[in-house]
């Protein structure tokens, strides 16, 4: 292997790793706030990518009907769960969030999609269509589970993943889609040819991370989310409704997932069920990072990306074997550092 191949592989790994990092961040966030391991995170990536791909080719994405359906389901679910308590203002807010919001997004899409409103609008639209699905799903599937065990929440997330994959096939079909890149620019740096899209991915990933950092460090809402993660009871005691924190965390997960999808669909083909493997990489990174540390997750994600790109060069048939076997010693090391075997308390 010469230096140029080495550099290209690193570049490839870092670009993929950046996406894994975004997903890892949102998995860490969702787990910390709600104790849910969001197996279905990858679906938001796939839906985001496919929705953007449809918009970028002037089609009206089927995902808007999925959005509408989920909004309706969340409306009904919320009404049922809080049938004894929801009144006046709360009911109105609930209806605005679950009915009016999707209706507005659907209307905007129907108007804008055929008009080819430009990349920025299309990106925003794709993200807007997919993002609210996550909080709706939280309301439908997880909020009623309250204090269930992590295992039950995990299996619920698996069930959600199954249902969403099925819905993905219905709404997007079995074939893959690709979108034109945000820019066709190609930057030459020595042996490296860095496509404009890769710059976009790295740039937006970095921007998003900084944005998240600012959100968590500087705003009271962000701090409230962190507080919920650190101490749920403490958060409830200062008046943070943990269900709302869950909705917010899922909203961020949906947003990050959708954005990741939009970012990668110009680089690779996205399939209705393709998000799962991407999500699994994010999950891997999140856990190696300790399922609690944001910088740890990012670092682990980059590591996973690079490991993948190198093993696909060395022995592509055994890529997964290599990547996943390499994880085990890391896990062992982390596990021993975190004290052994005691999962209680």
């Amino acid at each position, binding site marked *: 292997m010469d230096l140029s191949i080495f550099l290209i592989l690193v570049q490839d790994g870092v670009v993929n790793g950046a996406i894994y990092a975004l997903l890892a961040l949102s998995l860490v966030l969702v787990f910390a706030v709600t104790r849910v*391991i969001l197996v279905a995170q990858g679906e938001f990536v796939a839906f985001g990518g496919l929705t953007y791909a449809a918009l970028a080719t002037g089609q009206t994405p089927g995902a808007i009907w999925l959005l509408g359906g989920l909004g309706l389901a969340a409306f009904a679910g919320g009404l049922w769960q809080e049938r004894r308590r929801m009144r006046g203002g709360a009911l109105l807010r609930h209806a605005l969030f679950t009915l009016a919001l999707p209706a507005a997004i659907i209307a905007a899409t129907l108007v804008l999609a055929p008009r080819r409103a430009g990349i920025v609008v299309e990106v925003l639209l794709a993200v807007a269509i997919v993002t609210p699905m996550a909080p709706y799903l939280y309301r*439908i*599937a997880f909020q*009623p*589970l309250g204090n*269930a*065990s992590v*295992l*039950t929440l*995990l*299996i*619920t997330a*698996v*069930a*959600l*993943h*199954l*249902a*969403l*994959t*099925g*819905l993905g*096939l*219905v709404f997007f079909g079995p074939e893959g889609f690709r979108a034109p890149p945000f820019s066709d620019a190609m930057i030459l740096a020595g042996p490296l040819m860095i496509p404009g899209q890769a710059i976009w991915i790295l740039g937006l990933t970095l921007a998003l991370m900084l944005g998240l950092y600012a959100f968590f460090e500087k705003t009271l809402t962000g701090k409230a989310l962190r507080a919920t993660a650190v101490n749920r009871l403490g958060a409830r005691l200062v008046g943070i409704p943990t269900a709302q924190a869950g909705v917010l965390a899922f909203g961020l997960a949906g947003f990050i997932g959708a954005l990741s999808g939009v970012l990668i669909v110009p680089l690779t083909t996205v399939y209705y069920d393709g998000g799962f493997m991407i999500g*699994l990489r994010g*999950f*891997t990174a999140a*856990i*190696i990072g300790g*399922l609690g540390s944001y910088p740890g997750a990012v670092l682990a994600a980059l590591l996973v990306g690079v490991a993948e790109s190198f093993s696909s060069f060395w022995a592509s*048939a*055994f*890529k*997964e*074997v290599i990547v*996943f*076997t390499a*994880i*085990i010693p890391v*896990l*062992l090391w*982390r*596990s*021993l550092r*975190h*004290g*052994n*075997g*005691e*999962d*209680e308390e």
Partner: protein
Amino acid sequence: MTRPGLAKLWPLACIALAGLVPWIPGMPAFWVTLLNYTGIAAIVAIGLVVLTGIGGMTSFGQATLLGLGAYTTAIMSKYYDLSPWLGLPAGLLVTAAGATLIGAVTVRLSGHYLALGTIAWSVGLYYTFANLDLVGRNDGISGIPPLEVAGYRLLDARMSFTVIWLGVLLAALATMNLLDSRAGRAIRALKGGAVAAASFGVDTARTRLLAFVYSAVLAGFAGWLYVHMQRSVNPTPFGFYQSIQYLLMAVIGGAAHIPGALLGAALVTLVNDRLQDILPKLFGARGNYESIVFGMLLIAVLQWAPDGLWPLIARFRPRRRAIQADAPRLAAQTMPERGSTLLEVVRLRRNFGGLVAVNDIDFTLKAGEILGLIGPNGAGKSTTFNLITGVDTPSGGIVRFRGGDLTGRPARHVAAQGIARTFQHVKLVPTMSVIENVAIGAHLRGHASPLAGLLRLDRAEDARLYAEAARQLARVGLADAADRPATSLALGQQRIVEIARALCLDPVLLLLDEPAAGLRHNEKAELSTLLRRLRDEGVTILLVEHDMEFVMGLVDRLVVMDFGTKLADGPPDAVRADPRVIEAYLGSVE
């Protein structure tokens, strides 16, 4: 030998009766086939009950373990023309060996690291199967012979049914036996009571490995059945998705219950099959709504029954356990000579980051005395306990017991020296009855292996252990509560159960962490009497307590701690009068 009650045997009877199902006239043939798939899945799910539901280790790799068993017998019977019956022991052996190897690394992982660990090796093995010429790569091996009995090939689904459900019966029976044995109590203590179990001599790492290998062997067994029914094998049934299916079955059925595994396997298999028929009638043949509807059903069921369905059908009620009071007593320790030095703690130290929780503590304990350890919260009393009993490792200093060095030894080693303890935050296993919890205390006094438990060869010994547990429960005055769920008792009583459990160890030294907390006056008096009697029998006692009245009337000597340091040491009256103690601990609120 104790006879298991009818209450326990009825699920087995049901399975046995089920053996007749395929022979019911008019029974649709495909239903038998479905039940065959159910049976195979149920065996895997039973393994997951032990591993995940009871042992608390989530595995995403069960299907891959099935693959180990399946491929072994496939290779032997297809390529070497060996009888499928030889494939059974070979498959089990290979699975057990593989699982021991994988498990040796994996079960050391904790929590989510473990779950990801199982994903990692399962993905790794999957792609290894898919790229290995020996096992036919992605296309796999087909044309594998079916099972034969006396030259008769078991091709008919009803024949397979008999074999498969005999297998389910065996798996369920063996698992029930295992869980009811000495090793099984250790497995059941893993979730929620691992520290306590370790403090009574359970080797938790080995117990975790045992649960892992046991569940793997069941999966390997299922793999053997699968191959000779399916008669072909390729990597697709051993992937991540299938592993999730098995986990899902266990959780839906009720992950902590063997009948739950059967229920979950049956439900998932049946619902998936029925959906294929029902949905096209509802939505037309063009869509694929099965996974959508299945996922939604699953979510609905979990909201309705977060702990799975079986607990809704049968509420957890520990069965009444018949005690053989005449069982021969277990061998007892010889107590050290009264007044000899029993425990020496020298400059014991524990740092947590920058915080010094225990700061160079010294004290000694003489055989046959009661020593009280007092001080405000955070003074380091419980940490000191944990350092002595091996639950925590000291940063410095020495712990010597009967002349031997105990510093930094693991909890089970400390227990083996005859040191038993109770916990400030009660650590009883909620899913076990009071007497089963107490019997864990006698773990080191029994020797039956897991295999003996599985085959029920341990009954004589187990009867002795339970007789001992019953005796100790009676001693602390809780004989009536023996068969109640442990956590149904009031907190104060649970502390007393912990004392009974500690006594089951036949301890030389008893460490009690706030034993009187939550007790009423008369109960405290009874506890005092019990502890004095124990002292008179030669047991040495070290106790942490807040209740000064209780302590003052009981102990021979007091050690006062504050901010991790020893403030005073001496007879109660002298300590009470010590101005430093009054200033820092007893205080005087105006």
